[in-house]
């Protein structure tokens, strides 16, 4: 059973169509990146899945339960793009509150483990009000992981983090993959998505504009060979053509110093997919 199955999902706000029939699946333990320009419908999709927004048409199921039901909410962990915890709480108290709401039996051990996972184990008696934005963001991730959810929905989890914090989150995501937790990661940071995600879904104008593994989305752009007489570029060639091209050049008396197979980056694939929709 898929951790998340979205079929023909639509959301309209009056005359504005935020989602125009999205199909998407996240398998158990799969890490899927959700990309798209501002207003593409990424956050709306995530909010429908976690029950904050009602769909106009189509369906979304979390581990077989209709999105928004108590069973579906019980299976997810969610980090909103904009969130806040009561300022007078300590990190452990925030997690304790969410443990009780999620019905988690993890107790002190779970709280300690989650705080260690996000690097907040030394916050002691410090209150949330005294946390930096990055610390609050990491606490948000720990909160989303309370109760060992089967599907984790992260809406821009690294937006307030410095490079070291982003690296911590990447480590957390890799650990989650190891534990078999499915993740839908909504992010603007293409490099981050490229580094950690198994698959990428690019939304544009409320529809899926492209989907696949980062390798599938990247396509051939030719082969570059560095020779004694300079750099030669074969634009229509693919990876399999490289040995033949090298052999031909050597036969023609060229000295070869390097060969590079050119592919598009995720950024290029993204810009190609969203076309003029980039905000």
């Amino acid at each position, binding site marked *: 059973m898929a951790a998340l199955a979205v079929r023909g999902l639509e959301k309209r706000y009056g005359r504005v169509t935020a989602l125009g029939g999205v199909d998407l699946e996240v398998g158990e333990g799969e890490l899927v990146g959700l990309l798209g320009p501002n207003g593409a419908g990424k956050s709306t999709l995530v*909010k429908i899945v*976690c*029950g*904050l*927004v*009602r769909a106009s048409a189509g369906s979304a199921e979390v581990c077989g339960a209709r999105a928004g039901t*108590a069973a579906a*909410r*019980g299976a*997810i962990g*969610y980090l*909103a793009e*904009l*969130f*806040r*915890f*009561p300022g*007078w709480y300590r990190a452990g108290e925030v997690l304790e*509150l*969410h443990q*009780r*709401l*999620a*019905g988690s039996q993890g107790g002190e051990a779970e709280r300690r483990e989650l705080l260690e996972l996000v690097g907040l184990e030394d916050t002691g008696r410090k209150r949330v009000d005294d946390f930096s934005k990055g610390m609050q963001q990491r606490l*948000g991730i720990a*909160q989303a992981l309370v109760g060992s959810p089967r599907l984790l929905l992260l809406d821009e989890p690294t937006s307030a983090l410095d490079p070291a914090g982003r690296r911590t989150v990447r480590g957390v995501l890799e650990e989650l993959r190891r534990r078999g937790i499915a993740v839908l990661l909504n992010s603007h940071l293409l490099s981050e998505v490229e580094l950690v995600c198994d698959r990428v879904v690019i939304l544009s104008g409320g529809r899926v504009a492209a989907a696949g593994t980062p390798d599938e989305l990247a396509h051939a752009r030719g082969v570059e060979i560095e020779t004694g007489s300079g750099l030669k570029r074969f634009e229509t060639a693919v990876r399999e053509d490289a040995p033949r091209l090298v052999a031909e050049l050597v036969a023609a008396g060229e000295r070869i110093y390097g060969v590079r197979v050119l592919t598009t980056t995720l950024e290029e694939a993204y810009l190609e997919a969203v076309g003029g929709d980039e905000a």
Partner: protein
Amino acid sequence: MLIIAVYALREALRRKVFAVLLVLTFAFLGLYWLGVRQAFANPPDLPPAGLDSREFAGAIVLGLGMFAILFLGSVLAVFLTLGVVRGDAERGLLQPLVTRPLGRTQLLAARLLGAAFVCVPYVVVVNTAAIVIVGRAGGWWPDRLVTPVLELAAAVMILAALSLLGSVFLSATANGIAVFMLFGAGLVAGILGQIAEVVNSHTLSQISKITAWALPFEALYQDALNRITADASGLTEFALDLGPFGGGRPGGSLLPLWALAYLGLVFAAAALGFARRDL
């Protein structure tokens, strides 16, 4: 549900408005004690025949105190509930809570319960203090002790429920203004009723009655006022009926049922509105 109620209670106790209200309450009780002493210090040498001047003065000053307590209790109730849905959603406090298995209706009920944990004891304690002040300083005790206190607490809870309903649709500031406009409308209805008694206007009396039943916190306050001098008769009763803080109007045996039903209806409307609201 109790988890959220306790969360709401902690939030209430942490708010500055609570501390301000406590200071105001102590200031009010101190001034009230001084005022009551003065009111009873110089009784008229020759009161009109048939007028129990002690009962008259006691009922008027206690009626004034009950109005002030209703107002302070309402301020507390409104500040605890005015931002429960839209306000908290705009601040990002609500999203991490409503994506947990706890239902939206339960969350609303818990927030109302949290307000009740604070408002009901507040009204009961301060109203009892006012009764004791009048009794000790003036030697007059109301004819009914328990029911008027409970009615005042119920009136405050109705205002809390109205504020909770408003929080689903209005921003915190707009909601606060709207609820205090309703509070003012109830107050005007009460004054109109007393003017109707003086000028013997059936139409005005009907308008006042209908408004008081449409806003039953006013009907409860009027009934509470009526009960504190339930045994008054003759000229004393007539003079008290001229108001503005004495006499009141009896609500009848249906009032408690109507107040309960009204509370239920307002809560149901809030729950329905919240269930249909995208966050």
